[in-house]
């Protein structure tokens, strides 16, 4: 299982703060594509991600128990 966190626009689009996805050994890019299809999201191709609270790139492979956060452009401060 991989935990996926949604924030900002993506949280509004999905209506959820987080979901659990029953996949492992999948790359970030592949999981993004799966999520786009499953939740009919606007493109995630340029959306940053963090794996276990560290920024990561699309080729990162997700392991059992990882947390993937989808991070739209930040606007704090």
């Amino acid at each position: 299982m991989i935990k996926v966190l949604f924030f900002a626009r993506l949280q509004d689009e999905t209506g959820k703060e987080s979901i659990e996805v029953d996949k492992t050994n999948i790359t970030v890019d592949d999981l993004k594509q799966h999520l786009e299809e499953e939740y009919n999201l606007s493109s995630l191709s340029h959306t940053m991600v963090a794996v276990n609270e560290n920024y990561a790139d699309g080729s990162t492979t997700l392991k059992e128990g990882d947390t993937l956060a989808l991070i739209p452009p930040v606007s704090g401060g």
Partner: protein
Amino acid sequence: MTEKKRFIVTEEPISVDDVIHKVIRRECGAITTFLGTVREFTHGRRTLHLEYQAYKSMAEKMLADIDKEVSEKWPEAISAVTHRIGRLEITDAAVVVAVSSPHRQTAYEANQYIMERIKQIVPIWKKEHWEDGTSWVGDQLGTTSYPEGKPPERSFE
């Protein structure tokens, strides 16, 4: 310097004095603070209030990471940051950054650097509530590319 947590994301109003007290030291002659406050008008459009959302645990971690960058660039500087989330009204402080240093130039530069980095890499999002609707601030439609998979190392407004 107290051992209080120096990097905080909270739903509570921010006390500037509390943030300052985390960085006061006997060897320091200079403390700078920055308050980011909620502005009523942006490009002539009236904001009614703002709503901030954070990936809290990662945001606090990124603030501590920024502090490490600061310590490398300015070893004499100590920083503390509190970012508020939830609903904020006009003139409320959304963020307070405090930096102490023996000399003032470092305190100004490090403070400015922290604010730039917060706007680049800390996972916090702002939703504008206008008279005629709401919108998440920033390039939320993903037309900005981050080929490195993370925000660029450094950029200026």
